[in-house]
């Protein structure tokens, strides 16, 4: 019965594993190029070659290969401003896109995004409180009250939503969704009060809400990176189970997926990476909603390729948008969220019209 002569359909099936590898390699190259491009752009004119020299000089072991000095101001700009900002954009992009894939898969709902179950509302409230009342405390000797408040409130909100939606039988995804919507509205009402009493701080709050990477520095990168790396890795481990989950929860269980455990792991991971991202970037829309759809159109619905390609595409998209946001109207910086939507939506609609595979969502 096991014929070793593969038919066309079988051969095609195995070809796709090779194709997946190529997709990941190409997207990784594209990401590296995007980073390389983004670090050369900025209000201060520094020749690209100098930028790369500065960066390579500071990489251990490779540093010795580069000769020639550059001004210390250039070094500060490249190393302390541009590089951490570009990397922060990459990390936030990865986090939002992967969380979007996970929630869309888990809820089997094309409208799902990383903010669905209260993360954005929680984070917004936390950040607004910190800004409005100047709450400040130190954390391992660092003072980042806004990110910390955003992170804590985001996690707290999801925890609240989750525990309200939970019953003895486990968590019903629909209940979770509805509780999420209710809690979101509730927190937004409180936010409105905070904004009214916040006086002049309202501008800072509005800016934070639109999302921006302007405050990025190496500390941000170092703190957020572990969350995102661990979270995304954990999610990827269960990529196959997420595929099966698309057939419905009961069927997934029939196919050997421990659905309650899967939901727990996925929700915790997605929440952690989103909260970490939001805490340093504010609420950046679109990336978590539409990058997964774009990736789905391009590589298909299998999460084993969908997750890595969404992650890489999310990073690329956010770096590009952030680069535009910080340079297009010099010297003013525009919120990056404006560009993610302004550029991403037409592109997404173009892909929807052009798609070959029948995509229900």
């Amino acid at each position, binding site marked *: 019965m096991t014929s070793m002569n*593969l*038919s066309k359909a079988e051969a095609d099936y*195995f070809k796709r594993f090779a194709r997946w590898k190529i997709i990941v390699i190409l997207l990784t190259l594209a990401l590296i190029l995007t980073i390389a491009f983004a670090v050369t752009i900025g209000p201060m004119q520094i020749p690209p070659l100098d930028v790369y020299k500065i960066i390579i000089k500071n990489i251990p072991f490779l540093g010795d290969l580069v000769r020639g000095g550059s001004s210390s101001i250039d070094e500060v700009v490249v190393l302390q401003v541009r590089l951490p900002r570009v990397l922060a954009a990459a990390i936030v992009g990865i986090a939002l896109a992967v969380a979007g894939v996970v929630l869309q898969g888990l809820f089997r709902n094309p409208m799902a995004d990383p903010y669905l179950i209260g993360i954005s509302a929680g984070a917004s409230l936390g950040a607004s409180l910190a800004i409005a009342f100047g709450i400040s405390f130190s954390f391992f000797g660092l003072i980042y009250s806004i990110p910390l408040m955003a992170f804590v409130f985001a996690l707290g909100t999801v925890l609240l939503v989750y525990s309200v939606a939970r019953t003895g039988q486990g968590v019903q995804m629909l209940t979770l969704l509805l509780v999420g919507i209710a809690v979101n509205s509730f927190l937004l009402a409180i936010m409105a009060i905070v904004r009214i009493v916040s006086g002049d701080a309202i501008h800072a709050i509005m800016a934070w809400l639109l999302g921006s990477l302007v405050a990025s520095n190496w500390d941000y990168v170092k703190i957020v990176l572990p969350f995102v790396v661990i979270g995304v890795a954990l999610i990827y481990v269960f990529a196959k189970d997420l595929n099966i989950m698309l057939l419905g929860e*009961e*069927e997934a269980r*029939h196919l050997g*997926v421990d659905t309650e455990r899967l939901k727990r792991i996925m929700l915790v991971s997605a929440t952690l990476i989103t909260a970490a991202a939001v805490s340093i970037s504010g609420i950046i829309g679109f990336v978590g909603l539409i990058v997964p759809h774009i990736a789905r159109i391009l590589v*298909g619905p299998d999460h084993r390729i969908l997750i890595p390609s969404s992650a890489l595409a999310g990073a690329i998209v956010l770096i590009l948008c952030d680069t535009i946001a910080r340079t297009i109207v010099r010297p003013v910086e525009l919120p990056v969220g404006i560009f993610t939507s302004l550029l991403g939506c037409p592109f997404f609609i173009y892909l929807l019209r052009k798609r070959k595979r029948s995509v*229900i969502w």
Partner: protein
Amino acid sequence: MVTLRISGIDCYYGSIKALDNVNFSVREGEFVGILGPNGSGKTTVLRSISRVLKPHKGTILIGDENIYEMKTVEVAKQLAVVPQSTPVTFDFTSLEVVLMGRNPHMPRFKMESKEDLAIARNSMELTRTWEFADRPVTELSGGERQRVIIARALTQEPQILLLDEPTTHLDISNQLEIMDLIKHLCKTKKLLIVAVFHDFNLAARYCDSIILLNDGKIVAVGESNETLTSQNVRKVFSVDTIVKKHPITGFLHVIPISKPRNQQQKSLSIHLISGGGTGSPVMKTLLDEGYRVTAGVLNLLDTDQETAQLLKIPTTSEAPFSPITEEAHRANLKMIRKANVLVITPTQFGAGNLKNLNAAETALKEGIPTILLEDGSIEERDFTNGKATNYLTKLKNNGAITVKSTSELVHFLDKLENKNNKNFHQKKEP
């Protein structure tokens, strides 16, 4: 050697009891069907076995292991489920969906191997889905998709297969093909199969034994000829049926007759003179309309006699193929006198049943309204050299009414019924 033993399970949806002390066991190579009305708990039985709804009481064992103490993946290696329908909010290809059946057998970090693919291909060839292996399931018809889901279940290489009305979405040819395949696998691969059915005849045809379920309780278990009796079906479904071995297929055949309409009982009682099947549709119509019906004289084995028996209509009867005796004739007259209206259907008249027309003549003389259901073919039906025609003409001349169809008959009877009721009230009032 795999066995499935369900002992004493109670299941609840919230506070509503869906299953009440359900017990049964199935051996490998055995095909068990579950039948019952909507809401009787058929699907709940499957849901409890497939670990979707945990019973409050009782145990479900695969071999010696309690399925609720096994790991999800261990259960999935042995047990596959084909649900009624599968949501299609995804655009996986048929092959991708079928390959998901390999999930319980695959290590977490492995991609599908050639062996996995060979197994998937084999089950897709068996279900004739290989030809659209690379088509997205969203583009398939309901029947094609269901066959893909069955292929997926087979790809799990289970020892136990649970099917929830597996062929509801399929046309008749696909139904038989899929059921034949499942039956074949049951016998050759010693698969243990529990399937929920809506269709008695499909169940009777394929199942080794049948469980009849009502209100969450088992009403009957056993081979189809023991469980699918007219009595059991009436008890569970409140539908009258004829259960027969089909002359050609040899399978048990359940033919539904009627679900008694909740018509208000009418006051008129109607006697039918009929035969040869001409009275059968009239009997059913009049009963449905709420009239009391009697009939006679009918020969045993006559179609109308069998129908009357099935519909529980009182009759005067005569031995098969025999002329009406004086005794039967008198009994019939007695029956006619109790009726308010006499109806004669367009049956054939010969020497044997001419006495029935004689009875009609007597009845009409005694003032019992008589109605002739006519189709204009008296001559063709008269095998008495005109005697029957004479009788009928005489009846008409003496005031018998002629109607052309059953609906006209019903219309006329309704008028009589109303008049009768009015008279009844007028008599009472003064």
